[in-house]
């Protein structure tokens, strides 16, 4: 049937759970491409056949030309259809892969192994480029707000809004909490070289939880063996399985996202 392979490929994608990744179906993907080539060849054959017919000027030229025309049209439409299926397959996977960078970790090695195996080489490349773009954007936002010429002219209120936004993120960190606390609305003067200003810039990390926590520390339980002497921002910890810890929220966040820890409440 026409452009059937493309449909099978999309069906394969749809059968997986929504928003989650299946292994890249290289085999079927290539079959779709092969089918495209075949449609293209038949389309070419029909067109050149039609052209030859026209030169010969046989009896019912118009009638045959029309039916050749429709034949070519069907092949053409099938090509377009297969293209749409291929694009949708790649596009929808790319969206999931982008989400990994935002929600799980910016380095490929940070992803669980079973996820890494599901990516095709070009998707790994895409993941790497997307995370580095994200990282450089985050770095740039920090720099911009520090040395950008416009920061000299903005009003105190505007500065306050920006600082507040930073503070929301920075609250997750004890240092940030103290710095934030010490800002007084009236007396604060902007100095791009001040240590606090620069630190605020470094705290911007868009992939962190944006809701300000009630406490910079949280209680967690380790769910998997993570090895000994893991370096956290304020100490090294021995994170054995089932052990419970009182960690900085910013440190714990990435491990929770990867399913290595869980947050304890109450």
């Amino acid at each position, binding site marked *: 049937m026409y452009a059937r392979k493309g*449909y099978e490929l999309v069906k394969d994608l749809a059968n997986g759970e929504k928003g989650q990744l299946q292994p890249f179906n290289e085999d079927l993907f290539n079959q779709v491409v092969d089918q495209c080539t075949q449609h293209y060849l038949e389309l070419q054959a029909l067109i050149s056949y039609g052209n030859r017919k026209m030169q010969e000027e046989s009896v019912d030229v118009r009638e045959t030309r029309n039916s050749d025309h429709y034949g070519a049209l069907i092949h053409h439409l099938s090509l377009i259809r297969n293209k749409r299926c291929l694009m949708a397959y790649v596009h929808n996977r790319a969206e999931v892969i982008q989400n990994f960078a935002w929600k*799980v970790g910016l380095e490929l090695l940070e992803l669980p192994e079973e996820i890494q195996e599901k990516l095709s080489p070009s998707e790994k490349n895409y993941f790497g480029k997307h995370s580095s773009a994200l990282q450089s954007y985050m770095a740039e936002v920090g720099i911009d707000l520090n040395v950008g010429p416009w920061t000299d002219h903005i009003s105190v209120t505007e500065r306050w809004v920006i600082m507040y936004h930073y503070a929301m993120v920075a609250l997750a960190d004890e240092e940030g909490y103290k710095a934030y606390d010490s800002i007084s609305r009236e007396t604060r003067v902007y100095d791009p070289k001040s240590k606090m200003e620069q630190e605020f810039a470094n705290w911007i990390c868009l992939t962190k939880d944006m809701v300000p926590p009630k406490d910079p520390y*949280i209680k967690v339980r380790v769910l998997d063996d993570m090895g000994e002497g893991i370096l956290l921002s304020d100490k090294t910890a021995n994170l054995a399985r089932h052990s419970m810890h009182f960690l900085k929220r910013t440190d714990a966040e990435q491990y929770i996202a*990867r399913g290595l820890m869980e947050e304890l409440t109450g």
Partner: protein
Amino acid sequence: MANYYDIDGILMEEEFVPVVFQKAINGVNIDESTEKGCVEQGSKTELPFWLAHELHMRQAVSISVPTCFNQKTRLEIQADAACVDLRSRCPYFYEFGCKLAPLCDKSIGLLLSYAFQIRYKEVLHKAHTTAFAAASKFLMLLTKEETYLYEAAQSSMLAFKKWRMGGPRLQRASILGRKRKPAE
């Protein structure tokens, strides 16, 4: 056109419709059993919607009403819309009907809105009250669109409950799939 990359859109357009060819067509093999390599004028077959639609616009085929909108289904929907198994008839009943209505039979529109009004009430009611185990039988009857509605209703109910009870904010990224069972 709906979103070009929309998976459901693509799957929906693969639904078959019966057509009659108004023109002879050369160089194609629509029916794989015959291998004639051409189609005669007036012959009947079933084509996927995306192809039938394009050919219909060029007056090469005429489209007739597919079985999922036939008289029998209409009668069943009039009897009790909430109990009709629409999924097995057509998983994209509403979307497909909307696309099809202007091409072959305008009365499909009325049928769709009538069916949806009754079934929507049922879907929301079940989503908010039924336990998951009991719902699976009911879920078998729903089309894809109704399933999404059902899931949306259920997840908003869950979110509401979570907001009321409180719970951990940070969780394992859902994108990694279901939690693995801990290795023994």
